[in-house]
């Protein structure tokens, strides 16, 4: 059958600069470049290029750039080239379209419609270089009223278990299997250094990472891979994953060829078998079932660590979150529809779920309407791109955020959306040892630490500008936000005023 699928990218090679050293050829796991001795030049198989930009970065003479395939579309705004190419692919294969990373469609990004406040005259801004500026947060459930003995300065009853974050962000769940051990190790090391947490995803905790277990949030997902008492006991916190922003309502499938010896040992499944995560947890068909799982995990760990429950941001997320709090979740995690993934059906990724900004605002307000917001922690996830997004998320009502794409970009990810191929040239989303070796965990961790240090400085600057010296006073402080380019309904859901009001 003739393949109608066109290349998506084209390699631009400056002949004057190219020295035919072959670095590009050795860099590319997709086998795009080829130093052709006979022709005396370097050729490119454009159809294989995914635009990961590894060759562009590695080229010693800066002879390379990747550009879009220049083919024009039909001229129809309806039948775009991408739409038609998708049809061509499915006509060829009869398969579900697979894709990776977060929803790339041009849906509104509400972060970019929310502006931050700063103090002028009536109250002073605070200089973070002169005054303490606190970014520490605790996650866990709290009693509505604390009982203490004031004279002895003692608690009458211990506080439920909390995890402490020195910065209000954590690294979201990415399993060993979906990313390489070196990538996971880099995040674990960065989490330790930064005083925060990484998340194992549902791939179990590799034995090399056990020494970072106190900085780990271990996931219990529908496949229950790698879950045993040791795994639960080692972690700082446990997370029940109900859903993921990139693919709400969808399970997962790690094909047998990716179940190497190490992955097999860590996931506790036979080598070479498919790792299938069912769409629902088959012991959770309703909210009361969730309560049983939450308390099973608490029982299994002697009520020593908080249990988080993560759901994708879907239409009725506010009511669902309220139910989760009542089911005993200590931390509620909401993952918006722009959240990333190692592999998801493209139609699901691009069409299911709602933006995190609206979901977060609705959940925070609903929990307040129910008078239970102060008794649980709320974490927002699903494309936090910068320190300003973190400040906005906290001002909308989050205690902290989860980031995954941003730290991966710090490791070298260029958002080529080809994670599922397992051929990641940056050594991140792959299990191929030659590619994994490209990612040095120490150097990678340093890059992530640098990123978060930079963000933390920026958060402090922004808080100081608002006259706030503790992140506690930013949480839910929506007066620090103003909307631009939003309609009244959007403002109402976000709970913010329009700029100028």
């Amino acid at each position: 059958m003739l393949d109608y699928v066109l290349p998506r990218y084209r390699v631009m090679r400056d002949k004057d600069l190219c020295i035919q050293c072959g670095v590009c050829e050795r860099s590319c796991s997709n086998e795009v470049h080829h130093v052709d001795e006979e022709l005396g030049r370097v050729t490119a198989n454009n159809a294989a290029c995914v635009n990961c930009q590894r060759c562009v970065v590695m080229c010693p003479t800066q002879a390379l750039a990747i550009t879009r395939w220049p083919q024009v579309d039909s001229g129809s705004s309806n039948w775009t080239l991408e739409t038609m190419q998708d049809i061509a692919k499915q006509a060829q294969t009869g398969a579900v379209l697979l894709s990776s990373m977060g929803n790339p469609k041009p849906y509104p990004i509400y972060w970019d419609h929310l502006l931050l406040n700063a103090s002028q005259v009536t109250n002073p801004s605070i200089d973070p270089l002169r005054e303490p500026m606190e970014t520490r947060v605790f996650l866990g459930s709290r009693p509505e009223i604390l009982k203490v003995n004031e004279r002895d300065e003692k608690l009458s009853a211990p506080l439920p278990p909390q995890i402490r974050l020195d910065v209000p962000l954590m690294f979201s769940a990415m399993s060993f299997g979906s990313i390489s051990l070196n990538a996971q190790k880099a995040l674990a090391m960065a989490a330790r250094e930064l005083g925060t947490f990484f998340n194992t995803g549902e791939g179990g905790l590799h034995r090399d990472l056990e020494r970072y277990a106190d900085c780990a949030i271990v996931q219990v997902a529908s496949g229950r891979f790698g879950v045993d008492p040791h795994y639960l006991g080692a972690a700082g916190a446990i997370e029940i994953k109900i859903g993921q922003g990139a693919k709400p309502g969808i399970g997962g499938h790690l094909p047998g060829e990716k179940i190497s010896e190490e992955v097999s040992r860590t996931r506790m499944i036979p080598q070479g078998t498919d790792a299938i995560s069912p769409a629902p947890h088959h012991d959770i068909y309703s909210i009361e079932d969730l309560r049983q799982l939450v308390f099973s995990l608490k029982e299994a760990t002697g009520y020593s660590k908080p249990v988080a429950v993560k759901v994708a941001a879907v239409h009725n997320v506010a009511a669902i979150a309220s139910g989760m709090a009542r089911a005993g979740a200590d931390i509620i995690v909401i993952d918006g529809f722009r959240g990333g993934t190692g592999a998801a059906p493209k139609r699901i990724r691009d069409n299911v779920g709602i933006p995190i900004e609206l979901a977060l605002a609705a959940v925070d307000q609903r929990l307040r309407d129910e008078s239970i917001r102060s008794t649980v922690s709320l974490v927002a996830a699903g494309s936090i791109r910068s320190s300003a997004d973190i400040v906005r998320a906290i001002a909308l009502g989050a205690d902290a955020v989860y980031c995954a794409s941003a730290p991966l970009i710090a490791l070298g990810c260029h958002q080529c959306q080809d994670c599922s191929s397992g051929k990641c040239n940056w050594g991140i989303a792959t299990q191929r040892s030659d590619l994994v070796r490209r990612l040095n965990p120490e150097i990678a961790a340093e890059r992530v630490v640098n990123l978060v240090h930079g963000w933390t400085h920026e958060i402090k600057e922004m808080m100081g500008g608002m006259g706030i010296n503790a992140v506690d006073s930013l949480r839910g402080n929506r007066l620090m936000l103003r909307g631009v380019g939003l309609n009244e309904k959007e403002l109402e859901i976000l709970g913010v005023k329009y700029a100028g009001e």
Partner: protein
Amino acid sequence: MVRSLRKLPRRKICENEGSHPMLETKGPREGQVRIPSGCAIAAIMDRTGGRHDGGDILKSIALMHDRSNGLGGGFAAYGIYPEYKELYAFHIMYESREARAETEAYLDKYFMSEKQERIPTEPVAAIKNPPDIWRYFVAPHPMRLANSGLDEAEYTMQHVFHINGKIDGAFVASSGKNMGAFKGVGYPEDIGEFYRIQDYDAWAWTAHGRFPTNTPGWWGGAHPFTLLNWSVVHNGEISSYDANRRYVEQFGYDCELQTDTEVITYLFDLLARRHGFSQETAAHIMAAPSWEDIDRMPPEEAAYQTALRTVYSSALVNGPFSIIIGSDEGLLALNDRLKLRALMAAEKGPMVYLASEQAAIEIVCPDAENVRSIEGGQPFVVQLDSVVAAKARESAENCPAREKPFRHEVEVHPRRKERAHA
């Protein structure tokens, strides 16, 4: 419905007789927008409970004339109604006859009134078009109280909220026992003269002179802000306002006025009255020690402080503020953690003086001793000697209001007898 965007009840100004043309400013009124203000604050208290007239507090706040701009002033006084000390004294401002009629019908339904009268005032040239100001000495209607499932204080508070939020043109200026607030639009010294505060005797006085950036336009927006026995005078603009507001609104406190003072009062009521903390601990929660300090504490103390900060993180008040909180126990002064606003304290015998400026203390007590500025984040507490003695006998554990038996149930005669259970 998203609460923060709900339409605030607009206080319509009645067109008929008794309305106040001066109140019809073009700008939005307090409660419809948030108006930043700077201020002067002062307080005087006699620890022994001895009562003094309003002369000194008037002199003290008048000295700080330049710290206010004629758009708000007021006083709170404790111990002024000893003959009615068991009854709630409601000071209510009316902008129309209809508002008064509606309010009185409402009070008649939910309270038993022992006495009601116009608050005596004196014409002052600078005070124009004051509202009609009344006071009522009331007790909760016994049957309605018993059926409400609330304790007396909560019951009274809910009805004060109703009048302030739902009755156009009526505003409860104060609602405590044996205390009252006297406030309005004008310089504090003119407001004091208007209300004849020199003719009242109180064991504690607080005063406020306001410098709002905009015209608040009506008398209800002046300070002190009060609720039950609390009165709060405040100087500053807190940057944590919306975090604090959205925290207390979870528990039925509606921030109608959108002022810092209002939300600070509600935080105090929540922590001290409902959650049962001492006022000092409540203040400590609102100006919590830094994590840096907590990290240096011994483990048990650090655990205590960490728990307070964690459970009450949304009660942390941020940004510049100095506040004086009056109550039936005494006074409490508090500065923000960074000490971004001025507040001085001094003593002389049983008398304690607080003011934004030292000169405002020295003008009434030239030989004041122990003159010092309040430390950032360190609550300064002055209690009546009788309260100190009573507190020493009480448990040091906080007892939340909802865990206490209702007085109106347990103190009914005949008392319930203890019966052995079969």
